[in-house]
């Protein structure tokens, strides 16, 4: 089967039109109106990515009276010390501005009598966000950027050691699109579907994170030689049983408190045992898992007395964010106050928006390969950025890219449809031509099973052991070898094939990071049975790069990188 190649030239290419990508496209057009900006998404920007269902809160917001330093300290504490102070500080300084900028684009933010946004938790506010994604899409359409829908990133386009565009699979056409660009902002979100979820059959994609964010950005960055960080800080959230809907709204807005099967509030018991006055998010997860292992699960959230309008407020908040949960409540019933909601855990997911997994960047969100920038969940080092932090990073990356283009640092890309492009087109066409033996859905199931059983999934309470990880590594390498046989009968199957390729490479990198960190830094997220305690020499980052011979090379970086920005190299991880 022949694969046709479309070519498009632009100055600045934004890959992924979610929270971060939309912000980047708008900012680039505002700060540099002469720039030709192209945004490419695998889906349609009016309902793509994590924001497809809507959101009910801005989870990172500095309320009146909270200082930037306090905010940074709270993120550091919850990350058990491993975060990039410079990145988190820049977010703390700009999240409110970004939120109100999006408010000016049409996002409704309810306010109290004195005009202050209504709090959700201590550092978050409520929004009416069902239509957040259509609102961002409207702004993008108005900004003058070219929007290309239905094209999925398959690889970055590297010429002379710099990123000069990207390759996409046409989701409708099944063909290759080559975009030549001076600079590329990666904003494809994180990775879901690396691990098996407890839901099966028709419900298998009912998970918390967007299952269509498949780690494409991580995999493409690795293949382009860029450096990644903190993939071992996996995100395992407590979520409502069956639907994996977020619990934060119940816990923060509606006073929900965790109780075990016996009706005990168990957090204090663990806080005393672990010698702390307040559990961090990973510690709360660990406490919940320990209760379940001890036979005192499942755990429920008992809601506070929410008053007359209480139940309607709960329903509204979930309809705006995960409507499937309301369908489940419609079946089970939900009392106005004092109700209990059974919770469980979901994931692990890999993302830089809640935990710190992603591309290693400098303050301008420049990755370690010239011409490449990153924003949002695909970017690492700055946990708890959430949607407002994704906007801030989109704005920052767009300003850096525009400045670098203006400074002439990013020259015109190389010739169109050269030998490398032809090679990509052939690779895309080949499996179909061979008839292919491996169904991408089967390959995905195999991946999820291997990760679940050997790399700390749901069925093993997320616990890790060096020997299990070695088995995971071997199984993933074998699976990657089989991927040459993937079939792509039609464009949709070619998309699934590209997704599983990206997931497998991302999973290999995750396993390499998990093997490297020989301590338990984040209980629950990263419990090493063979190294159960935190160790001072691991108060550092674990970073990785993909080597030309196809290995994942891991190494350490200090918590405070030199102000000159990320250099390559770094101290090796001990063998």
């Amino acid at each position: 089967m022949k694969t046709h190649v479309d070519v498009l030239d632009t100055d600045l290419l934004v890959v992924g039109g979610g929270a971060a990508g939309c912000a980047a496209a708008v900012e680039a057009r505002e700060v540099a109106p002469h720039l030709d900006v192209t945004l490419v998404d695998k889906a349609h920007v009016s309902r793509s990515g994590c924001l497809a269902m809507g959101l009910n809160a801005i989870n990172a917001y500095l309320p009146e009276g909270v200082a930037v330093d306090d905010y940074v300290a709270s993120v550091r504490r919850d990350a058990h010390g491993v975060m990039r102070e410079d990145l988190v500080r820049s977010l703390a300084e700009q999240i409110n501005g970004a939120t109100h900028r999006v408010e000016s684009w049409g996002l409704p933010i309810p306010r109290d009598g004195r005009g202050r946004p209504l709090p959700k938790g201590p550092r978050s506010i409520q929004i009416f966000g069902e239509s957040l994604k259509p609102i961002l899409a409207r702004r993008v359409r108005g900004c003058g950027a070219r929007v290309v829908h239905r094209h999925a990133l398959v690889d970055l386009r590297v010429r002379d050691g710099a990123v000069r565009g990207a390759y996409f699979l046409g989701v409708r056409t099944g063909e290759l699109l080559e975009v030549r660009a001076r600079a590329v902002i990666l904003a494809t979100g994180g990775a879901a579907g690396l691990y098996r979820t407890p839901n099966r059959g028709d419900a298998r994609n009912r998970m918390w994170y967007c299952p269509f964010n498949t780690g494409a950005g991580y995999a493409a960055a690795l293949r382009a030689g860029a450096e990644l960080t903190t993939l071992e800080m996996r995100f395992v959230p407590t979520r409502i049983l069956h639907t994996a809907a977020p619990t934060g709204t119940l816990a923060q807005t509606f006073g929900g408190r965790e109780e075990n099967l016996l009706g005990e509030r168990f957090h204090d018991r663990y806080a005393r045992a672990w010698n702390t006055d307040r559990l961090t998010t990973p510690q709360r997860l660990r406490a919940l898992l320990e209760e379940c292992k001890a036979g005192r699960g499942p755990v429920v959230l008992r809601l506070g007395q929410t008053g007359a309008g209480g139940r309607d407020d709960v329903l509204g908040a979930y309809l705006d964010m995960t409507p499937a949960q309301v369908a489940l409540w419609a079946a089970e019933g939900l009392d106005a106050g004092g109700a209990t909601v059974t919770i469980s855990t979901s994931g692990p997911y890999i993302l830089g928006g809640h935990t710190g997994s992603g591309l290693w960047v400098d303050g301008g969100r420049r990755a370690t390969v010239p011409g490449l920038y990153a924003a949002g969940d695909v970017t690492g080092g700055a946990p708890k950025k959430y949607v407002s932090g994704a906007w801030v990073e989109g704005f920052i990356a767009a300003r850096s890219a525009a400045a670098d283009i203006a400074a002439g640092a990013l020259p015109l890309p190389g010739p169109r449809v050269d030998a490398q492009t032809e090679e990509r087109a052939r690779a895309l066409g080949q499996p179909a031509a061979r008839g292919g033996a491996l169904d991408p859905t089967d390959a995905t199931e195999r991946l999820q099973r291997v990760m679940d059983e050997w790399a700390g999934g749901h069925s093993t309470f997320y616990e890790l052991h060096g020997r299990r990880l070695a088995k995971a590594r071997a199984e993933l390498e074998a699976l990657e070898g089989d991927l040459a046989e993937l079939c792509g009968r039609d464009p949709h199957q070619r998309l699934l094939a590209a997704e599983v390729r990206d997931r497998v490479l991302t999973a290999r990198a995750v396993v390499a990071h998990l093997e490297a960190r020989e301590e338990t830094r984040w209980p629950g997220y990263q419990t090493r049975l063979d190294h159960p305690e935190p160790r001072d020499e691991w108060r550092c980052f674990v970073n990785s790069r993909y080597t030309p011979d196809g290995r994942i090379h891991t190494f350490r970086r200090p918590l405070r990188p030199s102000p000159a920005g990320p250099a390559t190299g770094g101290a090796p991880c001990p063998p």
Partner: protein
Amino acid sequence: MPAVIDWKACDGCGASPEPPCVRVCPGDVVVKDFARGRSRLREPGECWDCYACVKVCPRNAIQVALPYALARRNGYLHLVEHSDRGVVWEIRWPDGTVQRVRRPAHVETFEEPERVAPDVYSGDGI
């Protein structure tokens, strides 16, 4: 769990090559069956239950459906309206009472060409 397209109500949006339900699905899960003039989910297991398709269908032909294993035959959640006036959902509780909830909403019709214009360059096929 997924969204279910009611083939009695769906008319395939007439001659539309890409009906709204197909256009908005974030995972390329909905596909139009041109032979039958209806849309369907390629594979229910790929659906995220985001209900973006439910919200854009002009004939309200797509329903929220929980699997029997989770909700027995209960779990009725129905979209009544999605427009710039708001999004209105109807919930039926186990005791039979029906409740409507309205929230603010914005509708975006984004009519951009779905394919990159071949005017830029068309390779001859490789």
